[in-house]
């Protein structure tokens, strides 16, 4: 029986006091226990940034990779061993900027991985440059006032929906129970699951921290008539922002085949457990015959 302390890590986080990443770390540990996974059954791939240091602070199989690259690393791991639960934890710069192409392609192929995005809308570890989700006009060190950021921010929810993603959710670091419930739902989903977590950076993005989000967020689960299976309704929700920011499972479709389900070689079990073929003279002859 897996317990929360099984996930305790030997290293204390170096995140700032009040950082939204603490909530994500603690919730992730709880969610993994809730779905009954032990640390050795899980692999967490991360990119680069404050949040991507997470594998150092928890006992779990980890792969702290390159900026933008945890998604293809995760897919490679999972295709080789789909017995592991493979989770990507990375920031908005990693996922929507540097790794944007991987994000797009993983979702459209319904790779069976969970992607948790620590979306603080700023580059924190490099101390305050704008990110792919920074609002237009946002002043940072690389987008000085008065103009601020010129680019329009990425809308991850709408983008994921357009790509045919099968599980799309948003939560935030200021609502621990909601974050935990949504994370459990994401982990239980078969296929690509995106959980975008609004994560205050209290040092480099005070404009969009707890005080900003608290009065604006609401939970779609509390709307009696919201149906996350309704694609058109989800499309509308995906575009709500500003004074009303929807949290929760925005879109979900279950029962579609994952990428892995459709790879013939994986039907016989995890590739890594299939072992090496014992080559026979008949095999050799068949290989030779192709070239005769």
């Amino acid at each position, binding site marked *: 029986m897996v317990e929360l302390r099984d996930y305790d890590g030997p290293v204390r986080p170096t995140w700032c006091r009040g950082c939204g990443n603490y909530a994500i770390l603690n919730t992730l540990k709880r969610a993994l226990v809730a779905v009954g996974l032990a*640390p*050795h059954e899980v692999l967490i791939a991360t990119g680069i940034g404050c949040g991507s240091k997470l594998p150092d602070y928890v006992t779990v199989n980890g792969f702290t990779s390159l900026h*933008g690259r945890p998604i293809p690393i995760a897919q490679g791991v999972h295709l*080789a061993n789909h017995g592991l639960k493979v989770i990507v934890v990375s920031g908005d710069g990693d996922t929507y900027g540097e790794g944007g192409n991987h994000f797009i392609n993983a979702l459209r192929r319904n790779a069976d991985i969970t992607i948790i995005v620590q979306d603080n809308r700023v580059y924190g570890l490099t101390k305050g440059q704008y990110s792919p989700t920074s609002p237009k006009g946002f002043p940072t060190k690389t987008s000085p006032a008065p103009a601020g950021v010129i680019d329009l921010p990425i809308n991850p929810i709408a983008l994921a929906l357009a790509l045919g993603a099968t599980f799309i959710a948003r939560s935030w670091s200021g609502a621990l129970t909601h974050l935990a419930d949504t994370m459990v739902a994401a982990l239980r989903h078969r296929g690509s699951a995106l959980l975008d977590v609004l994560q205050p950076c209290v040092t480099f993005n005070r404009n969009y921290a707890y005080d900003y989000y608290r009065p604006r967020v609401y939970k779609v689960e509390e709307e009696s008539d919201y149906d996350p299976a309704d694609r058109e309704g989800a499309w509308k929700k995906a575009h709500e922002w500003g004074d009303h920011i929807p949290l929760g499972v925005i879109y979900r479709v279950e029962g579609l085949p994952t990428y892995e389900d459709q790879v013939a070689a994986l039907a016989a079990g995890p*590739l890594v457990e299939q072992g090496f073929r014992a080559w026979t003279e008949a095999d050799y002859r068949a290989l030779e015959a192709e070239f005769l």
Partner: protein
Amino acid sequence: MPTNDMTFKIGGEAGQGVESSGIGFAKALARGGLHVFGLQDYMSRIRGGHNFYQIRVGDRPLYSHTDEVHLLLALQSETIERHRGEIVAGGGIICDDGLEVNGEELTGRGIKLFRLPLIRIAEEVGDKIMSNTAALGAAAGVVEYDFERVASVIRDNFAKKGQPVVDANLGVARRACDFAREHYAASFDYRLKSIDAPPRMVINGNHALCLGALLAGCRFVSAYPMTPITPIIEWMSTHAARYGLVVKQAEDEIAAICMAIGANHAGVRALTTTSGGGFCLMVEGLGLAGMTETPLVIVEGQRPGPSTGMPTRTEQGDLLFALHASQGDFPRIVLAPGSVEECFDAGWRAFNLAEKYQCPVIVLIDTFLANSVRTVDRKDLHFEAVEIDRGALLTKEELDRLSDGYARYTITETGISPRALPGHPNAVFVACSDEHTESGHFEDEDPDNRVRMVEKRLRKLEAAVRDMRPPTLFGSPRADTTFIGWGSSYGPVREAVDRLNEEGERVNFLHFTDLWPFAADGIGPRLEPAGRLVAVENNATGQFARFLRAGTGIRVDEMLLRHDGRPLSPEYVLSGFKR
């Protein structure tokens, strides 16, 4: 009458089936017990332009194409205009009788023009599209080659398209063969005769690498298509069902290398393939494999660069790039096979070396080696000799016995840390792209730890160098001139050396395949007795010569280089030598 020693060249537009006809004819010759070497030359376009396929045939093993052509099969007039100068006196041209040809200069040089109604035969017996088949039939006829060998390849190649297509092609080939034999064989001196020999494979470097990798237990390939290595992922894809492979065409080369790293990390032997341009994108992944000590095999098929360069052409221009790619110092292994047999060996050795030394292994080939087919006996590919050595990989039983934790990057004398795969409760661990401690944690940034870890990783090369194959010497140990080459220059230089020695020169050839780690200590003594040292390379600056000097202090006397996008040939080496 010269028998079983000649070169065919088939030329035409892209889309006229030049390559498929060429490989088909090469197989037909191989089935008659003859040795062949097939050179593919094509432009980066789907239709039009001018492509050729050149087949050298002989009754002894061949290692290279040669520049001289004895029989040109011209599917368009441009073929004749481009290649008439390569035809030897007494050679011939097969073409449709409707083709406009300036014949005077040709006949003046003793070149015979064999005009046949190729298109009419194709139209009457089958379909106009089969005029390439007609040309092959005519070629067999004019050299009086055993038609049944050609027929057997036609049957195999068109079987998938159904009996009517097979029959039509056979009919076209037969009619053209009879026509050519009847009208022209008597006036042509060259002959091909089947000889009794065991069946031989007709295989190129790409496919030899595939076989080596497959037999080594490679089960995962992630790649982005790029000339010249696309045939590797195509072959792997068509064999995925039979051999239980996962082949993923990734969204880009960055994803391709990262997926392969992920799969290797999880314990499956995984391959990624690319050319120089894609390798540029992969470089951060190369460093990641180095830092995380993840086994990884990369096949890099060189073509002329920089940038898009000449996509379908050949060059050995990425040697120094492959040796030095990525920031920082970390161990890598670089193999540069030079023949089909060496490609096969590199295909399986790379996986053992990658797992044994837990580092990236780059197999450097090029367009010339990737696409050129050669006849080889299966016994020369040594299927049975493939061994699987996973190095210090902890077994499940060993992991079961672990009681006090597991540190992925344990410092050892050899630098090789016992490796666990993720999934065992006794070995939960992190692979880390930041500099890290033995347990994979990274945040203390301790300078002493940094030194220990850098040195630990680099120490792996001390053992790896003992697994590197020394260069092969061809020719006598003492010579007035020693050619030095690496990778695909092997065939052309070897043939040139043989010819020079037959002419009474004293030359030999040192051929390098295993380039890094470089056994520099062993090289100096081998080169000391040499006279003039000549580096032969298919690049503009003599990259190996520079590498050799950096590693050994030995400076070559001359460099014989080619960088026009075309492969070296024996004649190119000979003319350079004589200059």
